[in-house]
């Protein structure tokens, strides 16, 4: 006899008891120069993760991009190659990035090299020289990178959405024009560095196989000399979404259409936030959501639709994104609007909420289970003025959100009437379908 069992005979094993969220050992200190340092212990592998978050609101777009591109290109005592080699020698590395909120230096290395990584970091922060030769090279590389980005539909759709939702706010345009980049000179970078790369308001996060107090001591010893009293700039609040005609961005010949839908959202600390996160999960925020089960698993219109709540300093927004086959652009938008409208007007089933809740709570545990995850989470929280202990509060809010709370949040934030919709695709082929569903306003793809 075969050992094959009858279908339906085996039943799903129950889950064991939930593990309580346990925060790692940590310490925090604000140095005399205003730098906040947070050290978190996770000794699983002999490494340390480093994140330095510096506020960067209202920095000139092209100069900011070039500042990040060339910050590690040389100091009074080291060339770019020496910086990279010295970091490598302790298994380390650093990279710089910028967005409208923050300038970020991040990296990881062998924990035995923490002191050396901090020394090099301090050297860069206090003595980056922006040498002319390197700035020239990096200028050309950045321009090439912008050109490549502009050939990607996901980038074009996202930039169109940003312009549409942010209007005249600094978030509206986040990538400089090539001509602006070409105009950036080393002197402007040195000036910008002096003005904006300073410790006040900055947060350094160290996570790994460290004793938190000792890591703070190491950071204090190397970074106390980082001074400077440049200025900071407040970002104005992001404007509320203004629904209007569907914006169709024409990309002739495109074999897929990129759907982007923006909906209102609230910051992490807002009383509605947990319920909104749960509503978002039920709609399209994870694989087992209504949207994914509908347009992927039922209809096969798309591969990886997803929606998420995106938090920035000046405001939060919910963004739903899907790349769908050109010929089903209309039907895919119809199903999307249907799923948003259904969630906004009919309460979710209790089991749908429980499933989303377990996912939200479980993925908090997963996110905290690695050094890199903890470092990014700690840094993102710190950028919003929060600390890791907020996780416990967030988990408690997730745990107690009711079906009614989620229904209210869905009606308030996920209603299709509040949506701003952008579609990038072949206008000649998709205009008739889209025009049947909504007023459409068309523009050419522009970077």
């Amino acid at each position: 006899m075969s050992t094959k069992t009858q279908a339906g005979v085996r039943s799903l094993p129950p889950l064991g008891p939930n593990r309580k969220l346990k925060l790692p050992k940590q310490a925090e200190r604000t140095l005399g120069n205003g730098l906040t340092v947070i050290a978190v212990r996770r000794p699983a592998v002999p490494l340390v993760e480093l994140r330095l978050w510096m506020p960067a609101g209202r920095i000139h777009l092209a100069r900011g991009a070039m500042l990040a591109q060339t910050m590690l290109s040389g100091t009074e005592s080291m060339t770019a190659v020496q910086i990279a080699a010295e970091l490598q020698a302790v298994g380390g590395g650093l990279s710089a990035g910028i967005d409208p909120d923050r300038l970020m230096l991040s990296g990881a290395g062998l924990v035995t090299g923490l002191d050396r990584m901090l020394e090099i970091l301090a050297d860069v922060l206090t003595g980056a020289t922006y040498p002319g030769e390197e700035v020239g090279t990096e200028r050309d590389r950045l321009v090439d990178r912008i050109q490549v980005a502009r050939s990607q539909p996901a980038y074009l759709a996202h930039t169109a959405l940003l312009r549409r939702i942010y209007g005249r706010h600094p978030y509206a345009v986040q990538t400089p024009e090539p001509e602006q980049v070409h105009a950036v000179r080393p002197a402007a970078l040195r000036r910008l560095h002096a003005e904006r790369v300073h410790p006040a308001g900055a947060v350094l996060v160290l996570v790994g196989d460290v004793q938190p107090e000792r890591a703070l001591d190491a950071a204090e010893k190397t970074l106390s000399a980082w001074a400077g009293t440049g200025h900071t700039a407040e970002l104005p609040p992001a404007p509320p979404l203004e629904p209007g005609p569907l914006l169709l961005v024409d990309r002739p010949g495109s074999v897929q259409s990129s759907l982007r839908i923006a909906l209102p959202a609230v910051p992490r600390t807002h009383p509605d936030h947990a319920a909104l996160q749960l509503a978002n999960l039920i709609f399209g925020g994870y694989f087992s959501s209504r949207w994914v089960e509908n347009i992927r698993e039922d209809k096969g219109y798309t591969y990886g639709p997803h929606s998420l709540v995106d938090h920035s300093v000046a405001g939060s927004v919910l963004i739903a994104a899907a790349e769908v086959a050109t010929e089903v652009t209309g039907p895919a938008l119809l199903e999307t609007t249907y799923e948003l409208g259904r969630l906004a007007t009919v309460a979710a089933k209790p089991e749908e909420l429980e499933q989303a809740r377990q996912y939200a709570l479980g993925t908090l545990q997963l996110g905290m289970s690695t050094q890199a995850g903890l470092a990014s989470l700690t840094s993102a929280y710190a950028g919003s003025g929060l600390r890791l202990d907020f996780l416990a509060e967030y988990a408690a809010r997730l745990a107690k959100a009711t079906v009614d709370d989620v229904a209210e949040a869905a009606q308030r934030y996920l209603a299709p009437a509040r949506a701003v919709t952008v579609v990038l695709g072949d206008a000649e082929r998709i205009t008739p379908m889209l025009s049947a569903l909504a007023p459409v306003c068309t523009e050419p793809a522009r970077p």
Partner: protein
Amino acid sequence: MAARRSRIPATKYPVERFTLDNGLRVVLTPDRSAPVIGVAVIYDVGIRSEPEGRTGFAHLFEHLMFQGSENLEKLAHFRHVQGAGGTFNGSTHHDYTDYYETLPSNALERALFLEADRMRGPRLTEENLRNQVDVVKEEIRVNVLNRPYGGFPWLTLPPVMFDTFPNAHDGYGSFDDLESATVTDAADFFRRYYASGNAVLAVSGDVDVAEATELIERHFGDVPSRPAPERPDFAEPDLTAERRSSYTDALAPLPAFAAAWRVPDPITDFAGYLPYVVLAEVLTDGDASRLVERLVQRDRAVTGLGGYVGFMGDPFDVRDPTALLLEAHLPPGGDVDKVLRTIDEELDRLATDGPTGGELARTQARMATHLLRDTDAALGRALRMAVLEQQRGQPGLLNELPRLVGEVTDEQIRAAAATLRPERRASVEVIPGGGLR
């Protein structure tokens, strides 16, 4: 400067191995530092094993393994994993296909149940097959057809370097082949390759070994026993004359190229292979590496450069034949021939003089960081150990890799560099078509 050598640290993840009566090999690697687990099941079948006329089938079949199984309706797998607070995925490689979850550790038994159920048999229906053909076509559009540099170089270089179908064909598949796939094809593929004897289960993280062993016996013990199929020989002779190819990418704004050289057998000649893994990093890891310093910083001949062993970028999950690859993006009007000549010149220099003043030691320290960082996630350990078990019977090698990488010598790097000759090289150039309009 930079000559001081960092001591290369090691991990000590414990490893338990056993084999069930039905031939399923099991690896357990407990670590209770976080309340999460990783569960991976890998099958010894990949892109190289799909039949002619069925390009992309291994990957399509991977999708079908998520469409319900003996006791689970369509959508149930996703809901049960995510409803337990976990995440899941699967991926198709040249030599294996993996299925995995990472979850809070209270979901261990559930994850084992889900994997065992589909090992007994997925629900292969016409409706699910058609649905997933559509999904896979959208996946290919998003990753290959609707974007610049799609499939470069992992899909576009193998046909230049290799002559036989298993090694050279498009692993994502042609739309014609995907649309021709039948439920019978899928049932045959499952019967042949998804055998208990052809699989490895690895469980990592917050588990008790005795308890996990008992649960694994309970859920996988009665999976019907089927032996592993014989693995064909995919060997091809090395190149004896340079191969060059090019194609126009209508969406690409700038030129690019990739070049590859065959390397020793990763399994049967690991000691001979490892220096190439390190060499790829000596050449391209960071601003202080040989080729980045020369080509990006000094000559400004390329704007971005990468190097690695294995067409998908992981040197420790491939069998022979495979290659060391370099890929580079060029500025407008960039000259690929000139860049290739410079690479030859730098390789000659390295082959003649060997690495200099701490160059190798610092690269090895950096590689140790990357290797250790990958193992910090429970899931990363489960996946890597499953592959090391399947391909080598050595899951514990994961703990040894940083040290072994650190033992590669200047002389070995010099010798490896000396073999990367133009006449053994296959390369492919992307000619920019300049956009859709």
